[in-house]
């Protein structure tokens, strides 16, 4: 152990011994890996703790029974009677109310209170008043397309759920964010909680939530809030915190009270940042609302899910398209609102000018007329013409998918086989085929070598937990898939990231694509990928890569761009070739950022594990999905969800500690 520098010495940057220790660590790492392979060859297949698909351990049964007990206590347990049931009622009523307004027949009418024309009018007016003309046009076109695709009601359900969740998330998140921005103590308390909420794969808490809030809108909304509130809390706190000290000091030196400083300085200055936070929350909410279809939340997600289960690529694509359109509209409107706040401040235009008031009045009047029409006339209430465009889209997408499968099959199969046989299978048999104690030893040793004693302890505890959960074998299979996906993500991340970081033009082209990739709800990727590769482990890997790569690419690009221009200039002046520049200057100097990209990539990949289970990945993802649908497997599903969380915490801690070490270590020259 003497070879491993403690975190403290590494952090103080004791250059020479730290570096020597690091090199020694590297040799030891190679030795550990070699020993693993050798022992695997000898002990293959022993103590692998494999568990069949329908097999249960006593723990799983107990979990099931525990869940039954909670179910049974719904109407007798005081926690339910006086607390949870009220929350559920409140949320259900809120969602139902919004649905009654825009999506469902209500109040004895055959149609919702506001029909398509009214909703489109309101949305357009909001875009016009808070954004600009272009976003208003986009909004009108977007909403019309929901009708044209034949998905008006589903879209409105999704919108209703999203809006309710967003309003609740903001009502909770903004005050909490302000509080965390003002108080270090609150911030210290909230940060790990938010970390946990964000790193925990979303599917994991879906099933337990239904225990408390039943299947339906309330569970969906709560799940969405859990997923969507952290961004607005974090970003609001950041906005409140990042206000220049000098500005606050000036205000204090004039004798502001704390309340005055908050109202007159902090909040106005943080306004734009808070809107950015709201934008993030809206996007996160939309993507979660789609996923909440798994627990029967209404809307477009359900359409996609049904289509996925029947492998109906056309229908899934059609609904996916509507989701993407909604994402784009919501994103553009909130971004434009943020920019408008800034622009108004810069141009120094007061809010209440006459022209603006007249414009607002006209827009509101026109909207009122449209809402009235849609309330009274059927043609303005129900989208006319049926799903004209939708059926073409379905047919077209179905045909395109079929064609692609038929024509590209040689290439896609080659790729699939290359990755599966070249990388995935060996890796999986190494991880899942070794005795569990051997894998555990190797992981702890590696954590110790790469990330230090604390990470090694976390790893050890996590591995024991995985054994106790009775899902060791499945966890190892999932780990193999996850690591392979992360490897691909990082290869993509480094190649594209370096390219982007070095060339402004590439950045310009790639960035919008990556942005779209990030804002698109995860479900949507599955459709075309499933069409191309069928339901296999490889499909799950590709979906995870598609989800995680944009983040990693962006982070690597950011890190490469962050390399001091002087260093690059000096190296260029010294006659470095492009490759030398990349290999000897830019990549080494961007090491900390690249490590961060890897750890983020891994977390993103892990959060797709359950989605992978939907498209053939098996293992933990499948266990969770099966837990949703089969009563007797729900205990196992819960255990699998916990196993995913444990895996995530373990990998996250190891990566983070390793990243900190990389950052503390002086760059090689």
């Amino acid at each position, binding site marked *: 152990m003497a070879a491993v520098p403690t975190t403290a010495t590494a952090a103080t940057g004791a250059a020479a011994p730290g570096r020597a220790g690091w090199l020694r660590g590297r040799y030891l790492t190679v030795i550990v890996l070699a020993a693993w392979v050798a022992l695997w060859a000898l002990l293959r297949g022993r103590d692998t703790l494999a568990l069949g698909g329908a097999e249960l351990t006593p723990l799983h049964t107990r979990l099931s029974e525990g869940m039954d007990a909670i179910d049974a206590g719904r109407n007798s347990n005081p926690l339910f009677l006086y607390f949870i049931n009220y929350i559920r009622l409140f949320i259900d009523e809120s969602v139902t109310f919004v649905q009654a307004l825009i999506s469902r027949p209500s109040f004895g009418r055959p149609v919702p209170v506001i029909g398509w024309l009214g909703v489109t009018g309101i949305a357009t007016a909001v875009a016009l008043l808070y954004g600009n003309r272009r976003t208003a046009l986009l909004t009108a076109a977007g909403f019309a397309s929901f009708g044209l695709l034949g998905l008006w009601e589903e879209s409105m359900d999704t919108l209703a759920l999203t809006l309710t969740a967003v309003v609740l998330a903001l009502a909770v998140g903004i005050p909490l964010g302000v509080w965390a921005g003002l108080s270090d103590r609150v911030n210290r308390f909230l940060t790990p909680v938010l970390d946990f909420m964000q790193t925990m794969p979303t599917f994991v808490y879906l099933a337990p939530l239904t225990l408390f809030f039943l299947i339906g809108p309330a569970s969906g909304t709560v799940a969405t809030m859990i997923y969507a509130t952290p961004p607005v809390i974090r970003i609001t706190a950041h906005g409140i915190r990042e206000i*220049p000290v*000098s*500005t*606050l*000091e*000036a*205000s*204090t*030196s*004039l*004798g*502001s*009270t704390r309340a*005055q400083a908050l109202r*007159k*300085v902090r909040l*106005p*200055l943080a*306004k734009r940042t808070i809107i950015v936070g709201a934008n993030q929350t809206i996007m996160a909410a939309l993507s979660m609302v789609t996923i909440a279809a798994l627990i029967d939340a209404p809307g477009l997600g359900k359409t996609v899910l049904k289509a996925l289960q029947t492998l109906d690529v056309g229908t899934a694509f059609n609904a996916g398209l509507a989701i993407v359109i909604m994402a784009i509209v919501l994103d553009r409107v909130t971004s434009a609102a943020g920019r408008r706040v800034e622009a108004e*401040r*810069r141009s*120094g235009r007061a809010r209440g000018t006459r022209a603006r008031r007249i414009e607002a009045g006209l827009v509101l009047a026109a909207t009122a007329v449209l809402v009235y029409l849609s309330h009274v006339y059927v043609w303005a209430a129900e989208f006319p013409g049926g799903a004209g465009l939708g059926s073409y889209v379905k047919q077209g997408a179905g045909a395109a998918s079929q064609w692609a499968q038929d024509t590209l099959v040689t290439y896609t199969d080659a790729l699939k086989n290359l990755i599966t046989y070249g990388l995935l299978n060996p890796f999986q048999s190494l991880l899942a085929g070794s005795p569990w104690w051997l894998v555990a030893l190797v992981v702890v040793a590696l954590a110790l070598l790469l990330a230090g004693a604390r990470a090694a302890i976390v790893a050890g505890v996590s591995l024991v937990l995985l054994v106790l959960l009775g899902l060791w074998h499945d966890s190892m299979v999932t780990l193999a898939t996850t690591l392979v996906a992360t490897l691909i993500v990082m290869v993509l991340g480094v190649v594209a990231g370096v390219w982007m970081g070095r060339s402004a033009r590439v950045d310009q082209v790639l960035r919008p694509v990556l942005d779209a990739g990030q804002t698109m709800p995860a479900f949507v990727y599955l459709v075309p990928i499933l069409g191309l590769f069928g339901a296999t482990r490889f499909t799950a890997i590709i979906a995870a890569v598609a989800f995680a790569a944009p983040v990693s690419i962006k982070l690597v690009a950011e890190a490469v761009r962050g390399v001091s221009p002087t260093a690059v200039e000096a190296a260029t002046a010294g006659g470095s070739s492009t490759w030398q520049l990349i290999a000897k200057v830019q990549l080494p100097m961007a090491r900390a950022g690249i490590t961060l990209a890897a750890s983020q990539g891994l977390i993103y990949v892990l959060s797709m594990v359950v989605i992978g289970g939907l498209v053939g990945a098996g293992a933990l993802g499948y266990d969770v999905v099966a837990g949703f649908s089969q009563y007797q497997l729900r205990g196992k599903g819960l255990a699998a969800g916990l196993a995913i969380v444990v895996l995530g915490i373990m990998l996250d801690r190891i990566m983070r500690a390793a990243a900190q070490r990389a950052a503390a270590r002086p760059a090689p020259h």
Partner: protein
Amino acid sequence: MAAPSLTAKSSPPATAPGADDPPILDVRGLWKVFGPRADRVVGTPLAELSRTELKQRTGCVAAVRDVSFSVRRGEVFVVMGLSGSGKSTLVRCLTRLVEPTAGQVRLDDEDVLGCGERRLRELRRHRFGMVFQHFGLLPHRRVLDNVAYGLEIRGTKKDDRYERAREVLELVGLAGFEGSFPDQLSGGMQQRVGLARALAVDPEVLFFDEPFSALDPLIRREMQNEVIRLHREVGKTMIFITHDLSEALKLGDRILIMRDGALVQMGTPDQVVGAPADDYVRDFVSDVPKSDVLTLPWIMRDPRPGEPLDGPELAPDTVIRDAARTVLSAGRPVKVVSGGALLGVVTTAEILEVIAGPDPDTTQDTTPDAASDPDPDGPDPVATDRDEDGRS
């Protein structure tokens, strides 16, 4: 500790001669220690350690170490030091933007450090004003609202505060920019807004924390002259932080030099230049042309027997540079006269010695008598005569 090194060479540290009025601001034994358990340092042997030793032993940084001084009403008091010397912390301790670790700060008879939160706010709202290095303006408010901010938070009615804000904007030469936003103005203009904001509440003491460091040299000089003009017009007590020696010499009635958190020397500009307290200050002022700062008492000598005493007369507060022409063209000793009494004479030899360096044959210390002689009759803005010289 720096205080003991202040020997008879320079004036006593706190109360300058001739200051009979009680000081408006009186600071005694002020300490600010940052770090874990900072309150355990002052008053223990730890306090005697050097900054680096203290940092190593306790992890604490002593930003201000046992500083005492007092500021007279209407005076421009400059605190000068390099970055890290603790001068910005010192000024923040005075208004408790940073809470001092130990010591005493009195404004007139009030114990500033003993004030409750509410009383402190009252002081800040009515008696203190502060101008910051990075302006600290509110970007989302118009210039007019920025200037009126101090009045707004103390509850002045809208019309009244706007009226006052317009007045002050006029005073700092920004009339016509009321409706602009800060980021539409140049750095110099933004700092004028900062100045106007501080002046708007009509404070008794104005604190300047390196207000012109972020400005380019020409604008800086313009703003320095602006401060001198405002000081003449409104006569506020000003405490001015700077790292720029020429700025200190130009503006200060008295200068306090800090190093590593402690006071090194305090005195009038000519005392600092003519009689540096130690090598640190000497090194600091070595580039300053002495003839631009020192007054005649620093170089005059007693008339020798038989010397003609019918030459021109000059006042003792005349700067050497301004006296040079008279002395060189007089052809006989020039008398330094105050209130009819002959203080001494100055001849070509003395002038040349200051400008061209000491004559190797007659090297002698000119300071001993100078230190006791220069007798500033009240605050003497030595620097104001040198506005137009091109030094920066």
